[in-house]
């Protein structure tokens, strides 16, 4: 059920992101989700890839600063209000979502959202309670 997200420190200069994506492509690692948070001086790249162990070692070997954290991926209906309904469930709880972004999939009718929270168990329980479930690595084709 646990899906690993890799975060990479990016200095704010031309070509930094391209270096990371090239490194991944050279090693036949497929990007499944990507998000960037940035300040004036640096960026924080967050990715989900098909082989997180391999991606982490490749990135580390090439001098990158990397951290791996578990995230929860949830499928919502790919239609108006799909995400909104899920988020409204969260507003009634104390679960704090640090950040979220979308994941690319090919499954018709579904959109996948990536959530980062310190309160994973509570979040999963909430999903269960409402007949939803967190996507598994298998389901997303991740190792």
């Amino acid at each position: 059920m646990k899906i690993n997200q890799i975060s990479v420190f990016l200095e704010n200069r031309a070509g930094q992101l391209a270096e990371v994506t090239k490194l991944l492509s050279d090693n036949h690692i497929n990007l499944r989700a990507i998000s960037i948070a940035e300040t004036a001086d640096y960026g924080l790249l967050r990715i989900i890839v098909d082989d997180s162990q391999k991606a982490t070692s490749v990135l580390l070997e090439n001098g990158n600063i990397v951290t791996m954290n578990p995230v929860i991926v949830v499928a919502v209906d790919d239609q108006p209000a799909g995400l909104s309904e899920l988020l409204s469930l969260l507003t009634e709880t104390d679960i704090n979502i640090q950040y979220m972004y979308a994941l690319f999939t090919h499954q018709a009718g579904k959109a996948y959202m990536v959530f980062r929270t310190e309160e994973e168990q509570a979040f999963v329980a909430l999903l269960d309670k409402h007949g939803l479930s967190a996507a598994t690595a298998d389901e997303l084709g991740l190792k």
Partner: protein
Amino acid sequence: MYYQPDIETASHEQIRAWQSERLVKQVRHVWDNVPYYRQKMEEKGLTPDDIQSVDDLHKLPFLTKDDLRECYPYGLLAKPLSECVRIQSTSGTTGKRVVAFYTQHDVDLWEDCCARALMATGATKEDVVQVAYGYGLFTGGAGMHGGSHKAGCLTLPMSSGNTDRQLQFMVDLGATVLCCTPSYAEYLAESIHERGLRDQIKLKAGIFGAEAWSEEMRRDIEKNLGLKAYDIYGLTEISGPGVAFECEAQAGMHINEDHFIAEIIDPDTGEVLPEGSKGELVFTCITKEAFPLIRYRTRDICVLTRKSCPCGRTHVKMSKPMGRSDDMLIVKGVNVFPSQIEAVLIEQGYPANYQIVVDRVNHSDTLEVMVEMTPEIFSDSLGKITDMEKSLVSALKAMLGIYAKVKLVAPKSITRSEGKAVRIIDKRKI
């Protein structure tokens, strides 16, 4: 114009005679009253009898900022505290300050030096002197304030900052002489221009020091403020501003040699270099009582010249400092040592691999510390990283007394030349 014409234009022979007589007396005074320096002399096998004239000066041991730190606060005091009337201070290495003591005699001679500097710009008792150096522990305000009194000028003790009030008094009270840092002079000039006050100011001279500045900056300030701009040199360890000052020739600063003997040495060997050589400036205080440093290494690199000066003064002239023989930076008038920054980084859990970038933006110095990101600091949460940054900024401010911007950079991105890190990049065009 001179404040003390007999002294300022005395013959070279006369100056040397004063120096010899005063040095012999001073060495005896320090030997009798400063056990720390006495021990240093003994280690070199010296007694006061070995110093018969200024020709023997080179035999004496040096004092450095390390000695000052070791002796903090009273170790170099040569008079009982009951005889002292003043303390001034400057920021020092690793947060420890340099504390200098003055008897009334010491304050007097320091103020005399500042009065000489003021009168060299043509100031008389008809003038209104606006002192916009900081007042307080910093010597800038106190020194020029006292000098202005001695020269008989009407003194405006403004201290630094509060530009609105500076300009109001400058206009309303008709200030004719401005004393401040060159960067603040540039800032005032800009503010005067913005407010359209140029026609209402009466400044004719400015004495600008405590910071490095260029000839280009001088021309700018002179044009924008409509005055003649003079340089002044000093350091708290020796007394404060007025150790040396520029005359109307505006080509080098006359060192007040009746109070301070200047030498130029090779910073590596300590060997005294002949006149005209570029090297480290060393001062010996021959008239001060409470805090009389002998052969104090300033770490400032400059050149001395005895070529005759059109102003009539005979005292030796020093060039503007051309650099430092240590890694001290002066940023916004504050002494900054890379070792201070390094100590904060280590304490806050950052790697000691860093780079300091100093620049001057809109006439004001900026300090940026580039630090390489490490796995320990890194997190997938932007909030956590920015919290770490903020705490580093506060710790640097507490250590240095000035704001330093922190910039996190990629690992191994800080330039290393031949395996040795380049710690300081000074982009200021001075």
